């Protein structure tokens, strides 16, 4: 069997799984899986860029995805009336001031001769800078958060079309990735892992607590959509007519139509990113990346700047995750910082990349769809399994109840087993790198 045939069979298989879900459950859930599958595929592409091309171990995907979500709010929501006037200037000023403090401390550290005087100077700059920052920042934040806290209480966004948020999400994620990469790359590989794990927790903490930015855990709901609203479709005479001509119920048809609009938008993004990633992989740059991955010392001896290349690809991969994060928040229609969990947004993506085949873009896309499908379906399947296992037990027994209640936790178990089995018996994944 040739590679092309094998790949076609794989993708046809995943498509079949989704279609079966459509018949057995409902078309809405099938399209839900498809949409999230598309997004997962993009995230997996981003991680594959870092891990597959360059061997960088990033466990902070959740943070970059969340930054994408933040971008959606900052770009697409309308500005809160009066918020900028109330405290926008001082907040921005305070943030710039904070950045200036860090830069100043860095300059002093570089320019001054080592010794206790330098320590004292750096400490002084940081302490003074911190208190100036807080004295500017706190009152401004309080003013912003006072503006109608029940529904706004934040700065709001730029009021631009929501699709514009996708590239912005990528840029935000790239900026943070640069910062992290600059510190942690060039050290041993585990340090990057810990550093990214940390930054992702911090990004989530900031998004949960800085209410002036995006309302924190009060969530921002009702984000603008790139697709029409179901209600509007159901009111539109032409849509009802078209639905009837297909013999469909207008309510059902409207939900399906909206999901299809999203799916086509996401497909466009996925195809563009996939082509770019494929071109990158087969360019001299991609070959150099893989050469660095396989033997850093040899590449260094050939005059390649390994750390700089690593930084480059780390930023690129994180940007892709940021784009996917913005798309996901757009699909959800709301930003809920409380729902970002590392197991779902970091480690699951890793399972996708490993199962699909590290280093292979096509594999990542396949892994994205397949593992997402599994992630969604494990719960009903687990419940079915538990019902089957407990069939013989007496009604109302505590064990039976416990087992059925716990079926929801089958997800993590299954994912762990899938990851370990693939690593052990097929470490190159379903579609191996050529």
């Amino acid at each position: 069997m040739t590679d092309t045939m094998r790949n076609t069979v794989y993708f046809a298989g995943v498509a079949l799984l989704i279609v079966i879900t459509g018949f057995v459950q409902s078309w809405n859930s099938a399209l839900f899986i498809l949409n999230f599958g598309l997004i997962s595929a993009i995230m997996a592409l981003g991680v594959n860029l870092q891990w597959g091309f360059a061997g960088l171990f990033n466990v902070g995907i959740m943070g970059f995805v969340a930054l994408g979500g933040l971008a959606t709010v900052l770009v697409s929501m309308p500005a809160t009336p009066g918020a900028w006037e109330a405290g926008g200037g001082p907040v921005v000023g305070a943030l710039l001031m904070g950045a200036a403090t860090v830069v100043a401390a860095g300059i002093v550290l570089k320019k001054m001769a080592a010794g206790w005087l330098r320590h004292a100077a750096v400490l002084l700059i940081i302490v003074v800078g911190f208190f100036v920052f807080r004295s500017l920042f706190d009152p401004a934040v309080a003013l912003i958060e006072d503006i109608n806290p029940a529904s706004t209480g934040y700065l709001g966004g730029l009021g631009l079309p929501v699709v514009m948020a996708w590239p912005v999400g990528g840029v935000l994620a790239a900026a943070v990735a640069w910062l992290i990469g600059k510190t942690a790359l060039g050290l041993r590989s585990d340090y990057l892992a810990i550093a990214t794990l940390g930054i992702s927790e911090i990004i989530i903490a900031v998004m949960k607590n800085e209410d002036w930015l995006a309302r924190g855990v009060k969530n921002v709901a009702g984000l603008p959509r790139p697709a029409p609203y179901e209600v509007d479709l159901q009111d539109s005479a032409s849509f009802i007519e078209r639905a009837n001509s297909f013999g469909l119920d207008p309510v059902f048809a409207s939900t399906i139509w909206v999901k299809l609009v999203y799916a086509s938008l996401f497909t466009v993004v996925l195809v563009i990113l996939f082509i770019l990633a494929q071109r990158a992989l087969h360019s001299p740059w991609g070959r150099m990346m893989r050469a660095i991955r396989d033997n850093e010392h040899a590449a260094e001896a050939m005059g390649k700047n390994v750390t700089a290349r690593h930084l480059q690809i780390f930023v690129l991969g994180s940007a892709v995750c940021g784009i996917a994060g913005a798309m996901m928040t757009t699909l959800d229609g709301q930003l809920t910082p409380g729902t970002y969990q590392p197991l779902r947004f970091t480690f699951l993506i890793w399972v996708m990349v490993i199962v699909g085949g590290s280093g292979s873009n096509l594999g990542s896309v396949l892994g994205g769809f397949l593992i997402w499908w599994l992630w969604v379906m494990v719960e009903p399947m687990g419940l079915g399994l538990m019902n089957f296992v407990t069939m013989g037990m007496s009604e109302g027994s505590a064990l039976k109840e416990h087992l059925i209640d716990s079926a929801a936790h089958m997800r993590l178990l299954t994912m762990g087993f899938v990851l370990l089995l693939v690593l052990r018996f097929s470490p190159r994944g379903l579609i191996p790198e050529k």
Partner: protein
Amino acid sequence: MIDFLNAFVALSNFVLIPAISYGAQLALGALGVTLIYGILRFSNFAHGDTMAFGAMCTILVTWLFQSWGISFGPLPTALLAMPFGILATMGLVLFTDRYVYKFYREQKAKPVILVIVSLGVMFILNGLVRFIIGPNDQRFSDGERFIISVRNFKDMTGLKEGLAFKTTQGITIVTAIIVVIVLFWFLNRTRTGKSMRAYSDNEDLALLSGINPERVVMITWLIVATLATIAGTLYGLDKSFKPFIFLQLLLPVFASAIVGGLGSPIGAIAGGFTIAFSEVMITYAWKKVATYVVPEAWAPDSLVQLLSTDYKFAVSFVILLIVLLFRPTGLFAGKSV
């Protein structure tokens, strides 16, 4: 003078005691991470969930004991149950080593592959713990709640500030001291401990001198299981047991191990206390202490809190970054492979 005493009592109550007991928990966790790193040469991401598993087993046995009416007097029953939790965890880590990690060790796989494998183990353990005990908070502490309660302290000293010293905090500190003494005695004085250190320093030389690597690895896992269970149980007793917390604990634990220098046991302890003290001190509202110490006219209006407690992860992270930037091998020069 009284003011300074009051300030000191407030400081002890809100900063010193919590930070010392939290530091002891982190140090025990970081010791496990650092031992695995030194001997097996990878960062074990499943460590947080190993702690959760150990604590869970202890809790289950505690409940069993409580239902049988066995108690440990003023001390929590969990201490009686802990040996059983340790045994169960030992079984678990030996099982994962035999069926998961050993394969990659024999292949001489790259450390990063082992890290990813440990991610898989983490998934399974996390799922297992949630499956068995559920994702919710579990309380299992019993016995006396306080060694010194606020009221007793006030009656005793006549000071305005109270001092509470929880039993769990006392137990944490005492246990940690005992465990660390035993561990260092073992590593420095016994033949097996010495062979472990030799293996950690130089694998090839250790093999040449006839040290059995599989035995070293097994003993390491046994020690790590003990440390993880103790750390997990103490943390659960002191705060509360929630499976999700242990995943979040991974960051400060790793930060402690790296700050101290990966692979260095003494560094792990220093790192644990560094992280714990910084976290507590930076997120504590200093108003109370400051009001006693400074003249009345200067008394602060605000809380004098540097960062809100929600950012405590940020503290361990920033310390980690600073150490990575200026001293990548950590305070006690661990290895950097």
